């Protein structure tokens, strides 16, 4: 119970930081998905259920914050599935190795790509904008940027666990 409260508070902090730090991280309209990094961390640390639940809850809050009619649930859907996919990288006996190794980056990359494809598939329904064009223009760079940003926690964990 205590851990759930702790994770919830951290999730809230990440949500706020995600919106406040935007201007420092943006490169040519592309932003890393800090929330997704957090979800992948939860997936590796706590497993599929925690990551799926976190993905749904955080995605829903992001949907509510965007204040857009008729699209409530699109980020929640994408992040729920991303959390579920990241959960496949969970291994109870190898948590530290996964967080401090390249497997963490693979988990981030896969989850981020799945997230972006689902997001654009639903979000762009009924518009003139091509889904795959948007995936290559925004989805792939966002995935690469998020994965690159994942190097920071990966090295931090590697250092922490090796000492």
């Amino acid at each position, binding site marked *: 119970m205590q851990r759930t409260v702790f994770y919830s508070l951290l999730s*809230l902090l990440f*949500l*706020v*930081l995600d*919106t*406040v*730090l*935007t*201007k*420092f991280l*943006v490169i040519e*309209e592309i*932003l890393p998905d800090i929330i997704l990094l957090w979800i992948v961390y939860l997936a590796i640390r706590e497993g*599929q*259920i925690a990551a*799926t*639940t976190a*993905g*749904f809850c955080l995605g*829903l*809050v*992001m*949907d*509510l*914050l*965007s*204040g*857009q*009619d*008729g*699209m*409530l*649930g*699109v*980020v*929640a*859907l994408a992040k*729920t*599935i991303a959390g*579920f996919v990241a*959960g496949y990288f969970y291994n109870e006996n190898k948590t530290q190795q996964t967080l401090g190794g390249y497997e963490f980056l693979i988990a981030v990359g896969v989850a981020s790509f799945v997230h*972006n494809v689902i*997001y*654009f598939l*639903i*979000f*762009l329904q009924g*518009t*003139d*904008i091509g889904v795959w*064009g*948007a995936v290559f*223009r*925004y*989805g792939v760079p*966002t995935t690469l940027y998020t994965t690159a940003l994942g190097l920071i926690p990966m090295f931090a964990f590697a250092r922490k666990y090796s000492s």
Partner: protein
Amino acid sequence: MRRLYDRVVHFKEYLLLALFLALCFILLAQKDTSQIRAIRVLTIGSLASMQDALGFIPNIFDLKRENKILREVNLTLADEVSRLREARLENIRLRQLLGLREREQFDYVAARVVGKNMQPLRNTITIDAGENDGLRVNMPIVTDAGLVGKVVATSGAYAVGQLLLNKDFRVSGRVQRGRVDGIVAWQGGDFLILKNVAKTLDIQVGDVVMTSEFSSIFPSGIKIGVVHTTTQARGALFQTVEISPSVDFVRLEEVFVVRYTPDSDRIALEQRIAR
């Protein structure tokens, strides 16, 4: 019973995923009901106050650069103001001669951007002014550089603004020099698109695009951007006009909300005719 329980436990991850997916699809199928609006107001209000508390972070780093830009802008504007003063006097005189109605004066509410939600193609900002300051949904958001977007949700002390760089945003635009009208939209990328412009109409690179009188949400005369390119594809009826937005959305920190409510008589008449 025991077997059923075992099966549920065995497939709990999949069942949870199915439950969440079902909830997402139900939410996607929902319209903006009063209950959803209430939850949205609560979420915006509580998270925006936390964003507000952390708002000092960007300012510390940007202060020096911002000061430099402001000094340069100040110099340019001082020069422009003196020229515009002359033009205004002339304008008043000519309007009196022709008996034209004076343009409306607007009331602005200054607000600080406390959060940015820059999901791809869905860019919004959270500002620290809300219903308590007289803000309502659909009020235009501007800066000194031009049009930023419009208010799409409000709580007591905060509001969410939909940016021009949002796939659902549309505004009636007019090319200032050639008086050519069109619909300004964004389809991703760095530029806006001026839609429905016939190939025969005269538009040149560098032309300024403003909001037009045809909009029922935005007052006319707000700068949207400058024409970046015009392309005339063979066989197409319309030309493709790309507009470079005049507002730097990445560095947006302070905005003004125009307390503008469209003329209800005009809207009622237009709706009556449309029926």
